[in-house]
């Protein structure tokens, strides 16, 4: 199935080659979990600080382990960041 991944800030280096600044459409195994996706891209757990699926937060741990992605999902990931 195809999903979209978005990696920001220092995680941009984990994006496969492509034209868009942050986003790539990628092919993944059907029903892949969020944790497995993060692992596949070699993003350390403590670097996947803010993780959104379709704009909604998914907490680390069991929520990510149990979250099976579906076709067309948009997964956005940030390292620990802040501002204001």
């Amino acid at each position, binding site marked *: 199935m195809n999903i979209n991944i978005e990696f920001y800030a220092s995680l941009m280096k984990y994006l496969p080659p492509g034209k868009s600044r942050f986003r790539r459409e990628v092919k993944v195994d059907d029903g892949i979990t969020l944790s497995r996706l993060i692992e596949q891209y070699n993003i350390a757990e403590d670097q996947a600080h803010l993780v959104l699926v379709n*704009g909604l937060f998914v907490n680390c741990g069991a929520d990510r382990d149990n979250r099976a992605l579906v076709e067309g999902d948009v997964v956005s990931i940030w390292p*620990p*960041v802040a*501002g204001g």
Partner: protein
Amino acid sequence: MSWTRKILRVDLSKGSCTSEALNMDWANQYLGQRGLASKYLTEEVDPKCDALGPDNKMIMATGPLTGTMASTGGRYSVICKSPLTGAIACSNSGGFFGAEMKFAGYDMIIFEGKSDKPVYLLIQDDKAELRSAEHLWGKSAWEADDIVRATHQDPQLRVACIGRTAEQGCLYAAVMNDKHRAAGRSGVGTVMASKNLKAVAVRGTGGIGNVNDAEAFIAATNDGKAALAENAVTGQGLPAFGTQVLMNVINGVGALPARNMRDVGFEGAENISAEAMAEPRKSDGKANLTTNGACFGCTIACGRISTVDPTHFSVKDKPQYQGASGGLEYEAAWALGADTGVDDLDALTYVNFLCNEDGMDPITYGATVAAAMEMFEDGTITTKETGGIELKFGSAEAFVAITEQFVTGEGFAKDLGLGSKRLCEKYKRPELSMTVKGQEFPAYDPRGIQGIGLAYATSNRGACHLRGYTIASEVLGIPVKTEMNDTDGKAELVKAFQDATALVDSAGLCVFTTFAWGMDNIAPQIDAACEGDWSVENCLETGERIWNMERLFNEAAGFTADDDKLPKRLLKEVIKAGPTEGQVNRLGEMLPKYYEARGWTADGKIPDETRQRLSL
């Protein structure tokens, strides 16, 4: 003790400068900077006074840790009654000016009265004198800074001054220091201009020699620095990407307001983000971001130093703007960018330079232009008012043109200088002003994030993210993640952030340390530096005391619970699309709980028992 125990009092009506002892009873109750100067203000200024009259006072105040080896210990604040809101104003700035003031031997400078001619204050250690500033009046803040330092031939002289917008009566003018650091909000620069005070130049050689327990202080500040370095946000994220890294985060979670908060979500966000600032551009291969920068004593270094593409229309014929200068921070990038619908990074950087050069708050300025743009699009305002400029959302050309007019006081400048509340009232569209207590919102939509709406509504200086930055918890998960759209627990969360921030703002520290530090990191540094009890409990109670004192000033100025409110747009107009679709802010669910958590009455008043508990 870290306090110098000395105040400089400058009577501008008489032209006198006298030093006096710091009230140590008040210092022990209110610590310094925001808290202590607000105490002086509440004791010496009638809250009902005309903010731009001689009875208002302006205080420049340091904290006990300002100028010390504590990380970020370079802060100072400007405190007065605000001409924009009529409420208490306290604007905090970094750079190097605050530490220099401390080295000259002063905890604070109180300006009172009004000079009959433009003057500047020159402080060289214990020598303080007023000098004519007639040659500086009409100059930008950058020009004035250069002239003062050239006059005194001292490269280490530190200057805080106002630009032309303050002189022209813009109600949200800033006090600029070190050229691109600003005591930016609530019009403190306008108050400075009202006193005919153009600049304060300080050189101090005294250092800080009176830390209460030097050994404990070195240990506590070293621990603090280690915590900042080890923390991923303060050690890596902020120095690399600055606050601007939030542009995509806040857009991604569905809480980035756009086009005068008419929309939530901005399609151009990524073009004005921290990541875009770091990309090489086509013309010269350089990035917008030249380097990061740090204020005095700071080990985070979140500041942005930027250049505009020299081939960009805004600067191509203006070599003076082609060098590196203070770049976009998140709140400014939002107000100047998403709120006006402009996603041209170079145009926004140039406008930000102009905000620094002539000293206006970019949040209120951007939001006021955004309100004008909405009125232009619906025909309330026409090219007749704007001097021929097609002031449409998204037009970088129009935004640059109107800003260049604005800083010189031409065209539509007088109207824009009113701020959005008065501007929208003038054109009979008060509902389009996105303000609380007359001050414009920063970059987080309270429809998407509930707690920040309560923080905005109850902020003592009008809409402001820095009075209770619940975004840390509601979005960023610091110290713990709370749900953005929940209202449960938000009253207590807002109170906790407000009280802790009041203490940090009174210490001489930067609030960004709190991404890594809790009060158990901060209290030991204050406790080692200052005599008296500065335990975690006492620090938190001091923060709460300061918050309540500010509220009492506002109450005496005429504010009531009716002013703890949000514009109807944020309570009634639902978010149209995205992950927060259908949401509004539910202030009504949170406000009564907030009053209760504060120990106030149901109508937001501070009862005797709460006053007694806090020794107010």
